[in-house]
């Protein structure tokens, strides 16, 4: 009965959705006076940022990103609260099975390069695909690898908090510096440099580095919390 209702309603919903989006069309631009071109041109001319997505994420719509970082922060906070137990850090492991020596040494070998890759990704966020989120996630997967491989690998909770907080403070502070010096929150205060160079885009690079650290710390924290949730 329930399934029938669900199927019928999903059918109708699907019909409407398909109807809408086929009407919208694929691969064509529908609006004439949208903000797309403004973003593209401003990204190139004003900010000198190659990766327009980065320019949007960090600068044009940097406020969204601040919110997004906050969402992750909140998720890790809420998660810690949800899974909170008094005996929290008493070495409980939930590794699937002990890793073999090959895996262990492989992981040890891979870990620095993963972290390096992540750092590369977020440092070059404004030049190439990738950025703080991607880089941070990659670093977090590095930690994940270590956590899964080594039974006793532990990440200092306090260190995570430091990274997380300092990165967040850095982000907001850059925004506030923009607010106090230029009159607008998150406004670029540094020289924008030249296109396609590492030091271009003003504060974008710094913010993305902060985001990268923050995301890495938060995701590692989330994984750590969930992983050690075993009773």
């Amino acid at each position: 009965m329930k399934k029938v209702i669900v199927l019928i309603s999903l059918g109708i919903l699907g019909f409407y959705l398909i109807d809408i989006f086929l009407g919208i069309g694929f691969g064509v631009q529908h609006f004439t006076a949208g903000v797309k071109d403004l973003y593209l041109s401003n990204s190139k001319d004003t900010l000198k940022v190659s990766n327009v997505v980065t320019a949007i994420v960090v600068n044009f719509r940097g406020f969204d990103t601040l919110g997004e970082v906050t969402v992750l922060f909140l998720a890790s906070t809420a998660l810690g609260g949800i899974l909170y137990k008094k005996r929290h850090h008493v070495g409980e492991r939930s590794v699937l099975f002990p890793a073999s020596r090959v895996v262990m040494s492989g992981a040890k070998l891979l870990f620095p390069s993963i972290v390096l890759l992540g750092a590369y990704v977020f440092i070059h966020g404004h030049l190439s695909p990738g950025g703080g989120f991607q880089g941070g996630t990659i670093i977090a997967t590095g930690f994940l690898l270590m956590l899964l491989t080594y039974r006793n690998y532990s990440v200092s909770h306090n260190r995570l908090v430091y990274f997380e907080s300092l990165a967040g403070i850095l982000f907001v502070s850059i925004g506030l510096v923009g607010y106090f010096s230029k009159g607008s929150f998150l406004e670029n205060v540094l020289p924008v440099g030249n296109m396609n160079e590492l030091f271009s885009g003003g504060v974008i690079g710094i913010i993305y580095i902060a985001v990268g650290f923050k995301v890495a710390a938060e995701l590692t924290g989330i994984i750590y919390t969930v992983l050690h949730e075993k009773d």
Partner: protein
Amino acid sequence: MVGSPVLFVAIPLLAAFIIPLTGMMWKNSVRVIPGLVLAFMFFLSISLMGYVNEHGTIVEVLAGWKPPIGINLVFSPFTGFLTTLMTFLGFIVWLYSYKFKRNVDFEPSMKYFMLLMLLVTGSVGIVLTGDIFNMFVFIEIVSISGYGLTSFYTRRDSAEAAFKFLFMGAIASTFLLIAIMIIYSQLGTLNIADIAEKMPMMDHKLKVLSLVFFILAIGVEAEIFPLNGWAPDVYTEAPGPIGAAFAGIVVKAAIYASVRLVYTMYDFSGAFDLFIIIGLITFIMAETTALRQDRLKRMLAYSSIGQMGLVMIAFGIGTKEGVYAALFLMFNHAIIKSLLFFSGSYLVFNKKNKYIKHVNGMGKYLPITSVLFTIGAFAIIGLPPFAGFWSKLAILTAAADNKMVVLIAVILIISILEAVYYLRVVNRIYFYDKKEKTEPKKPSLNALVAMISLGVIVLVIGFYPDLISGILDRAAADLLDKGNYIKDVLTLNK
């Protein structure tokens, strides 16, 4: 200008990131800093309100990009009013719960206050932002802090409530994204004012369908009828003050969002009728369900949902009087329902299931709390001379001016039911004998101050409604003046 609207978001976020650090050094800072931040937000909003009254709407651009490129925050009489209300309530909730969580470990208590602060911040962000995607981000902030706060008590069934909330919230956010994308694909912009200006260009069918998705998405947070299954559970299982925060802050933000959609973004006249229909169904269902509750907080929750339905009805009337009534009702509801949640959670403090029967005879043991609960109950029923009466009169007058006779009759009949279940509780407080041996918990000083200040507001507004009617008038005029909003945002001379 004394401050800027962006500080409403920047300062709490900064504080949220700082708190874990300071918490390592000085444990009490995790309680104190959120309070300071909330107080700061409240005073900021008051000072900005003063500025707005003199100089008109403040439009704050972010990252130096004027709309429609950048995100902007709009602090107008309308949004300013809601901001002031929310930050005030946020501060009161903090004040009330300052000692409430003393017995809890350090880490959960840190999380509690941090999440509370970000809940308020997210709600304020929803109200202030002038960008729909940014609104989505803030809605998510509010939702996730809501999930965290709901599941605060690990021993209760709070995880169940939080999961239901999350389930609905996740579906809602999906459809919100779809609606945003439909609009973006047609108009190429995400700025509310820009959308509002270009809306006539949009295909009618897509306009309708995107609004439908918006209503579904925002309706979940606004607790309209078929989407509010999560709400009573959350109100019941969340810590007492959080129920007040939901009723007073989160729902207000969601209602704001839906109102902004219908009044500013879209140009449908039929949407107002939809507001009335949805509001009426919500009102009827919630109030009738509340009649048969046996748990106090659940009853309050349904009552809150019902009141929100009434607010939707008032917004659906669509005239200036209607908006005035709706805003008045929102104000009253925020204050009164918080008072009821605060005093109610002390009346059933040490009880596990918090049944209504646990309030029996509390009038003798907790006289002040009981009187405050009674004042709240009378006010929310709409008995003069308490604050609730004026809003009820305003909404009925607005409806009568539009010749909605049946609507008036239905509202009044349902109001009788509301009176019945509140009075049943009041009767129990004073005229039943207490059966349990357990000693009722006396409210701590900070909680008492919070409750009494709310009670005083209820009385003062009841006797002297002119105190806020000017603000409400300006806010209502501001909401209805769509052209002015567009002009303010798009022709920004900064």
